[in-house]
């Protein structure tokens, strides 16, 4: 079962790097968002350093959601989804494996790029390290929550930006706790929001596969 999930995760990751798959686009989009903000805000380094973690989080959130519309749509269109439904591995675990693969291809590169992009915003080392850590913990939740939207979109036969619009409201808790866990010296200790962020990721790892699998089954035609 673990081997089968690993196989599906690796296939999903591999395919998202192929033929203009979303993986690189997400990373470039992240870079674009983060580099554009200083032009809009102006050359106030202290302000940039203060809002830096929030900008990084918003960039990562949008970049993650952008790439998700094809998570199940390709499988639906080429017929692989039928075979996944028929397979021995429960569809819920297939969904979880596909989320893991999608995160490896899109979420992890964002986390790796964060320290570099943080320098562009002049974020000091300590908050930057925290931002990177919270993104590492929080982006899986974004992928998982996004997977529910991706499954619904696939079931409805739509695509494109609708996933991002549909899912964005539900990612707000992740965003709030993710950003507040980077506020060193703020009114609350950093560990509290960080633990809640971990909890959100774990909860979505359970709920999202169930919801997405139900949507996919309902959308079979």
């Amino acid at each position, binding site marked *: 079962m673990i081997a*089968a999930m690993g*196989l599906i995760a690796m296939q999903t990751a591999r395919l998202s790097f192929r033929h203009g798959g979303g993986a690189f686009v997400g990373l470039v989009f992240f870079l674009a968002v983060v580099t554009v903000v200083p032009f809009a805000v102006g050359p106030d380094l202290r302000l940039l350093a203060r809002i830096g973690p929030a900008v990084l989080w918003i960039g990562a959130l949008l970049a993650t959601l952008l790439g998700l519309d094809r998570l199940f749509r390709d499988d639906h269109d*080429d017929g692989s989804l039928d075979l996944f439904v028929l397979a021995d591995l429960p569809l819920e675990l297939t969904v979880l494996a596909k989320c893991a693969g999608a995160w490896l291809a899109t979420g992890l590169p964002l986390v790796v790029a964060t320290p570099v992009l943080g320098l562009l915003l002049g974020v000091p080392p300590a908050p930057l390290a925290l931002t990177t850590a919270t993104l590492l913990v929080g982006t899986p939740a974004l992928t998982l929550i996004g997977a529910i939207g991706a499954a619904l979109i696939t079931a409805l036969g739509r695509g494109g930006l609708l996933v991002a619009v549909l899912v964005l409201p539900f990612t707000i808790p992740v965003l709030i706790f993710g950003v507040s866990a980077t506020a060193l010296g703020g009114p609350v200790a950093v560990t509290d929001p960080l633990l809640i962020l971990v909890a959100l990721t774990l909860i979505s790892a359970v709920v999202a596969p169930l919801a997405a699998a139900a949507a996919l089954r309902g959308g079979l035609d």
Partner: protein
Amino acid sequence: MPHDQETSPAAVTAPVSVRLSASELAAVRGNRQVFAGVSFSVTAGELMAVTGPNGAGKSTLLRLIAGLLPPSAGEVSLVPVGEEKIGTRLHYVGHRDGLKPSETVRRNLQFWARLWGGGDVEPALAALALERLAELPVAVLSAGQRRRAALARLLLVERPLWLLDEPATALDAAGEARLGHLIGAHLAAGGMAVVATHLDLPVKPTATLALRTA
């Protein structure tokens, strides 16, 4: 006698009691009744052809048997009833080929072979004359070549029931002959097949289920 008359050695070892039966099946797509009151029974070594005009519900019937769609009435059973999902005891080849365009034929087959706990993909590649195409990405294949790659999945693991939806589409004469050979060998080994088609099959069906537009 439910068993086939062929005397191939594989037929001796095959389970005699496999049987697919359906009673009073009905399907509704959208708000339209596609068919109703469809009953049939297929046992080891039998091939049932499902015929009918476009829109009569041939594909729907196959998806219903596979469990991909719920019937609006009636039920399907595959005996012996096992613990495992019905989907793991059948092969379904639909209109959509289930192949990833950017991956090679070999990789596509290897993926499913591993997922299904099967072994080597070489015999499957050889049976459908895909050896020379094995390293090409599926995106560059012709429609008939893709179909052959999809049909190669039938041989990755052995399963008693084959559900084939217009399997001969886009196949050339040689491809059709290979398909006939595959189905023949499957039936001789005690397998069952349900094939939706509006063309003549390369293998003579033992039964025909004609669906009419409701």
